[in-house]
């Protein structure tokens, strides 16, 4: 045996499998990724779901339309208000029920507060994933103020269940407007800190710039939505395109970045927080008077047929599909969750890159596993 032969054999590389998760802190929940890697280069990614499946869609077939709403809190728990809003909009659409302007405006304000709360938490976790622990504490400080607003008005901090078909469960708390204004003043001062602490940091930029690129074409073909799609330049904001609630009355810009890398997805979310604040500021001073709910029957029976409504959650487009046979329960209920389509595109983004980049890319997708795995 020659010396050359030994060297070639012992340095021959081969692909191997690594399980990332289901209890890996960087997967934000119980997501298991089966990585096929060659050295440190990723060859393929296969997400394995099912660890937190609670059969919410099947449970909806058992429940009445009022009871369905509280289950959707448990899907995408960071934008629970928006999920509730989506179900209520679908039921109202099918009943041809027009809610009052007051309800529309309050729902919009609370949706945008939810979006800010979700994005602040994402920002903290994103920083933590790329190695900056301070971001987590700063983000939670700001999120805490929104949680207090929710707790005072709705009674809960995470699973609020504030919307009901036909309106809202109870009126806003007398302190609500004051507290929201306080928060806006506070957050306008603190959001530039996010930029100087993390966005402009050289280490962070090197970790994210040009990493995990999703092209415009792929963004469309994978059906991604929300900040992931807008980071690739694909205009997909449901609030603009298929306006609902009070979004047609306010001025805001759809944030678009065309690079398609992790940094541009990051920048979309930071800019969206500014836009959300803009929306709240336009609405908070002129909440119209009116009833907080339109009376519905105690047992809601939807007419026979299929109904679909989509909303923009903090993660993207959430669609609610109800197939009704005219009884008090839906025959079939389907949620088109933004997380699942966004996770599908992960393979496209990270193949050929390094494992370290995978964590940064996944953080930029803002994955909430209970939303993917209902």
């Amino acid at each position, binding site marked *: 045996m020659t010396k050359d032969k030994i060297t070639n054999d012992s340095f021959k590389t081969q692909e191997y499998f690594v399980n990332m998760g289901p209890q890996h802190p960087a997967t934000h929940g119980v997501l298991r990724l089966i990585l096929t890697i060659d050295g440190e280069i990723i060859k393929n990614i296969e997400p394995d779901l099912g660890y937190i499946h609670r059969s919410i869609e099947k449970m909806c077939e058992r*429940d009445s339309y*009022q*009871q369905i*709403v*509280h*289950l959707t809190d448990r899907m995408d728990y960071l934008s629970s208000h928006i999920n509730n809003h989506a179900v209520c909009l679908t039921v109202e659409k099918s009943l041809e029920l027009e809610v009052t302007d007051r309800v529309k405006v309050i729902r919009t304000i609370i949706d945008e507060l939810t979006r800010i709360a979700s994005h602040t938490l994402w920002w903290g976790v994103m920083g933590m994933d790329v190695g*900056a622990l*301070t971001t987590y504490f*700063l983000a939670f*400080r700001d999120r*805490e*103020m929104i949680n207090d607003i929710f*707790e*005072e*008005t*709705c*009674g*809960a901090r995470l*699973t609020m*269940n504030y919307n*009901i078909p036909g309106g809202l*469960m*109870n009126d806003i*708390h007398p302190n609500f407007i004051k507290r929201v204004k306080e928060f806006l003043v506070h957050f306008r001062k603190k959001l530039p*800190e996010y930029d*100087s*602490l*993390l966005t*402009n*940091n*050289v*280490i962070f930029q090197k970790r994210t710039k040009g990493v995990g690129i999703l092209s415009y074409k792929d963004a469309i073909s994978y059906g991604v939505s929300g900040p992931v799609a807008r980071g690739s330049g694909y205009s997909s904001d449901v609030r603009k395109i298929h306006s609902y609630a009070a979004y047609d009355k306010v001025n805001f810009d759809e944030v678009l970045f065309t690079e398609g890398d992790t940094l541009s997805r990051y920048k979309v979310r930071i800019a969206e927080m500014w836009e959300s604040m803009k929306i709240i500021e336009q609405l908070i001073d002129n909440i119209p008077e009116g009833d907080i709910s339109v009376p519905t029957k105690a047992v809601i029976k939807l007419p026979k047929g299929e109904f679909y409504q989509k909303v923009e959650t903090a993660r993207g487009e959430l669609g609610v599909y109800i197939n009704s046979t005219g009884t008090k329960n839906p025959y079939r209920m389907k949620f088109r969750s933004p997380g699942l389509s966004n996770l599908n595109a992960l393979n496209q983004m990270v193949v050929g890159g390094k494992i370290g980049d995978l964590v940064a890319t996944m953080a930029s997708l803002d994955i909430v596993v209970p939303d993917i795995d209902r």
Partner: protein
Amino acid sequence: MSYFKDIYKGIKTLLTGMSITGKYFLNARKGALTQEYPDNRDTLKMFDRFRGEVIMPHDENNEHRCTGCQKCEIACPNGSIEIIWDRQIDPETGKKKKMIDQHIYHLGMCTMCSLCIQACPTDAIKWGQNFENSVYDRSYLTKVLNKSGSKVKAGVED
């Protein structure tokens, strides 16, 4: 040249970040939202609408407002409320009337969705502010909301 530029930029942004961190380090308690929970139990007050657990208020005569209409039981999405009722003779009118025997509330199953409280026509149940619900055995989480020997307040009809 760009190598030195990178070093300069790197140090500059690091210092910017460090200055923010340092600012918060020096003003640690200023504007902090942290509550030192077990120590502030005496002064801690939850918000009025806070959903801790379902309670049934009783007045000084040991009377509640629950008529046993079971609307909360129907509204509950996961069967947290069970009502055992009976027909008893009303002492005033002499007629048989539906009355609750036990209003059983499974706190361990409750998702705090507030649908029962919305459904109640007589405001018999409402949210309590207690949130310290940890117990050693889950059977303690099954509670009977009406006190023993209590009866419906006169004049409460659904």
